[in-house]
């Protein structure tokens, strides 16, 4: 929808007023935000925090995500080959999702022979062994519930086992009790919405669950459970455990997913994933599944390389280090493959890499509008609000078009964007901010190749742009300068930090506690490594505290 917002009708669009409107709900806790985007320049910064502040994240009862469910079942049953069908990420599980969970539980017990030794500490096909069943309930229950079962819970599962044993026999009863555990509320839901209204500190077991769900997308392992049981996490041991989890290869998918989602490589309501993005075969004969895999792999390699090397967000935005295969090297205009330096003056970090550029493009041409919106909304955290209803998402392609008088003209993409969004229409209010943030990327075509003249029109490229509504406002020459400018911005750093805090606490970014954000971002500077930033997030008050809202 945001490819072209051409507006021809006279509508009460107050885009200037809408730019940067915070999307925080009216009931967001805390005092007015220090960085209120609506505040005119020069307004003194008012802190969201005072001595009385007790930052916390909203307490919720939430189902495991499909990824968390898959990892958790694999860990619980020590069955790494198990692949469930559950894919329901709706805020309220659907009937289809609950049916999938039933089918997955049935499929999981079908694989009993493949489970790790000791998951069932006796012969399930042998004679009735009530002690064994009790052990299964206690052991799997503790792992699944991320704490020891209460006596009520244990009695409930024991009752399930006994009635199944009497009706179906021992083997089926063991299967039934495991199936019940895999679909039980204590396993499937993270329930932090307990207790009286107000702020409370999470206990050790809740912290262990948050930590494992965040960094491993799974249940805590034995070492983390033991740490929780000995009260370590609430007495200074949280960072050490977090460090241990973060250093494990199991944290890598979490980090990769964070960046893939940030760059929207997996698709959004507005565009397809990198793998599903269509490109015009005549214009881009080299674009095939193998090249797409290389693009994806390159970004993953870059993230792994910089993060494991202690790099910062600034490094991610500016480094020219890359790991490419022959096809991608060709796209970058290089000979050879492997570890390379991308051409100086043409490339910088993440935002100048092919994967990002190909996703933020139409099948034919680059999309300065979508790229500009990304910079403003996703890098600077300045929401633009909904486009007006007569906004158009037909990609602006340039080339031969008809002008206002009906005459044929040839326009570059940039010229076409300016013609369609400028003039006296209401478009210009938003697009005077969006377009100049996207034009610096004009050198890169729809698959991210660097061009001096535009593909299709052969018109010269103009990358001059401008940043507004940021703490680094000013003219921008091209994407390399844009990357360097963004890398030096506190607003960008804060935005990145908020995104991590949102992921860590399963809280939408607009619901984050402002004071928590303020105290956390005060600890982060330009040199803070991504790893330390994640650890700081985990040590922040919003990670360890929840606020229970009044009952509606």
């Amino acid at each position, binding site marked *: 929808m945001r*490819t072209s917002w051409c507006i021809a*009708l006279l509508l009460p669009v107050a885009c200037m007023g809408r730019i940067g409107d915070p*999307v925080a709900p009216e009931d967001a806790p805390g005092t007015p935000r220090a960085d209120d985007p609506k505040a005119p320049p020069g307004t003194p910064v008012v802190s969201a925090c005072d001595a009385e502040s007790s930052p916390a994240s909203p307490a*919720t*009862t*939430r189902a495991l995500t499909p990824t968390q469910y898959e990892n958790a079942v694999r860990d619980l049953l020590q069955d790494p080959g198990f692949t469930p*069908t559950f894919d329901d990420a*709706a*805020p*309220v599980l*659907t*009937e*289809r*999702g*609950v*049916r999938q969970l*039933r*089918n997955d*539980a049935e499929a999981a017990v079908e694989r009993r022979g493949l489970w790790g030794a000791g998951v069932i500490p006796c012969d399930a096909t042998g004679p009735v062994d009530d002690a064994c069943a009790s052990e299964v309930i206690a052991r799997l229950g503790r792992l699944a519930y991320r704490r020891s079962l209460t006596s*009520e819970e244990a009695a*409930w599962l*024991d*009752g*399930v086992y006994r*009635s*199944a044993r009497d*009706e*179906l026999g021992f083997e089926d009863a063991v299967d*039934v009790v495991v*199936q*019940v555990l895999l*679909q*039980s*509320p*204590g396993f499937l*839901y993270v*329930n932090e*919405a*307990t207790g009286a209204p107000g702020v409370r500190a999470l206990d050790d077991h809740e912290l262990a669950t948050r930590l494992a769900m965040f960094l491993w997308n799974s249940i805590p392992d034995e070492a983390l459970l033991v740490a929780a049981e000995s009260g370590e996490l609430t007495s200074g041991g949280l960072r050490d455990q977090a460090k241990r989890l973060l250093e494990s290869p199991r944290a890598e998918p979490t980090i990769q997913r964070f960046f893939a989602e940030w760059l929207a490589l997996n698709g959004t*309501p507005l*565009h*397809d994933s990198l793998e599903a*993005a269509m490109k015009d075969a005549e214009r881009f004969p080299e674009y095939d599944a193998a090249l797409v895999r290389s693009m994806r792999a390159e970004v993953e390699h870059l993230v792994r390389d910089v993060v494991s090397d202690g790099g910062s967000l600034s490094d991610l935005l500016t480094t020219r280090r890359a790991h490419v295969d022959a096809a991608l090297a060709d796209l970058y205009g290089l000979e050879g493959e492997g570890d390379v330096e991308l051409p100086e003056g043409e490339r910088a970090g993440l935002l100048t890499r092919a994967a990002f550029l190909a996703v933020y493009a139409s*099948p034919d041409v680059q999309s300065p509008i979508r790229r500009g919106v990304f910079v403003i909304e996703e890098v600077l955290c300045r929401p633009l*609000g*909904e486009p*007006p*209803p*007569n906004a*158009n*998402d*037909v*990609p602006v392609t340039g080339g031969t*078009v*008809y002008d206002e008088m*009906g005459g044929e003209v040839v326009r570059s993409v940039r010229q076409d964007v300016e013609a369609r969004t400028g003039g006296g229409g209401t478009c210009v209010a938003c697009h005077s901010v969006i377009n100049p943030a996207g034009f610096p990327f004009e050198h890169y075509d729809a698959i991210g190749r660097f061009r001096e003249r535009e593909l299709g029109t052969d018109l010269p490229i103009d990358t001059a742009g401008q940043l507004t509504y940021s703490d680094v406002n000013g003219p921008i020459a091209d994407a390399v300068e844009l990357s360097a400018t963004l890398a030096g911005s506190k607003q960008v750093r804060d935005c990145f930090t908020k995104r991590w805090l949102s992921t860590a606490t399963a809280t939408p970014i607009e619901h984050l506690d402002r004071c928590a954000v303020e105290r956390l971002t005060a600890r982060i500077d330009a040199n803070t490594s991504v790893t330390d930033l994640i650890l700081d997030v985990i040590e922040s008050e919003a990670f360890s505290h929840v606020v*229970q*809202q009044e*009952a*509606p």
Partner: protein
Amino acid sequence: MKSLENSGRRAFLRGACGAALALPLLELTHGKAFAQQSATLRFLTFFEHGGTLSNMGTRSFYDGTSKHHGLDHWRPSSPSEALELGPLMASLEPFKAKLNVVQGIDNRAAMAQDQYGRGGHRLSNVTSLTCATTTSPEPDRPTSLGPSIDQVVADRLNAMQPARFTNLHLRVNGHNYGTPYFRAAREAVSGEANPRAAFDSIFAGVTTSGPDPEQVRLQSRRQSVLDGLLGGYTAFKAKVGASDRHRIDAHFEHLRALERELEAVDLTPSCVVPDRPESTTSAEVVGPLQVQLIVAAIRCGLTNVANLQIADILTPWTTAGTPMNQPRGHSLGHQAREVGPTGADAAKHDGWVAEMSDNRKWRMGLMKQLVEALDDPDFMEGDRTILDNSLVLYTSEFSNASQHVARNLPILLAGSAGGQLSTGRNLEYNTVRAADPSSNGYDSTASTHNLYTSILHLFGGDDDHFGNDDAPSRGPLAGLI
């Protein structure tokens, strides 16, 4: 610990399934006339996302002299009340006498809640079957605060004519801005997009031969698991904060739905379990398979209500293909306002019309397959076909997606809901055109609220109104029934 509450509830469910027990209650709640209705009724919805090939504008129809094209391929070819099908519905010609096309219906819930008074993508979607107030002001992700019409009808029909599934929901997957289907407030429905998974959830264990011992064992195990879970969720609910309790309530209800599937089914004599389809994601293959599954489930008596939801997909396999080279159906729809004589894409007019027309005809082709199968004379119910005993609602969130306007929605009704609805009609609620069919003017006070109130009446309700208070008037659509 076998919960007494559960055992008691199960006994009640089994007992209450008998029609003799259920009917007096229904007379009280749903009116006497309906309780005497003997035919099994069905309600189906066919939702195509992204609107249709229409020249609907914000307040009037485009005349084809501006940036926008001037074509309306949805509109019946004659303004007469006797229905003459327009170009998109040409394939439905053999069933014309069993159809109604209803023009001039607006979605006033979307229009009233949109800051621009039009509807917009997300609001139009979440209100198009719910007529509900939404969780604005969350412009990016509004969710409905009421159930969709299919769910309301399904619950009522299921109380009168119990079936294994209260409601089936199958999809052709792709991009669209939110779902119009809601089971309850904030609770979107999601259906199967893979025909194999759909088959497995509908027909697993359904057999017209005797009971299979392996199946009986599976059922017993499932019952044990569900008994355990229902007890567990009841206990858990008490420990969840009020703001999130609806999630656990919904989970509990879904488990109960799975439990109901374990009840014995009286399959209809004509039930034919279809072959297990391939696992596929190709829309071209998925669409017809989903239609076949819905038809088979209805013929077997497994459900009274079914939904087929078609995302705003592109259709490269049609004759016209995808010459516009748009990345998704949404952009193809938007291009409508660039292909008129003064539009930037004027030169692409014919190509755009060909692609859009073939795309929408493919979707309508699925409707044709559905209608044809339901009307199959080999599956008569007395002197009526299943189609005669059904109402199929075909609609979309827009008429013309390029303007984001939820006015003059495409509404096609098939079947007469057991002879209650006269068919073969073209009903015009646009008062300007009703007076002067050649006009491009538009004015209407009829809303989907009114249409769905009428639909509730067809299924036995005597409801005063469906949905929120955004409609200009309450009550059913005058002149429909």
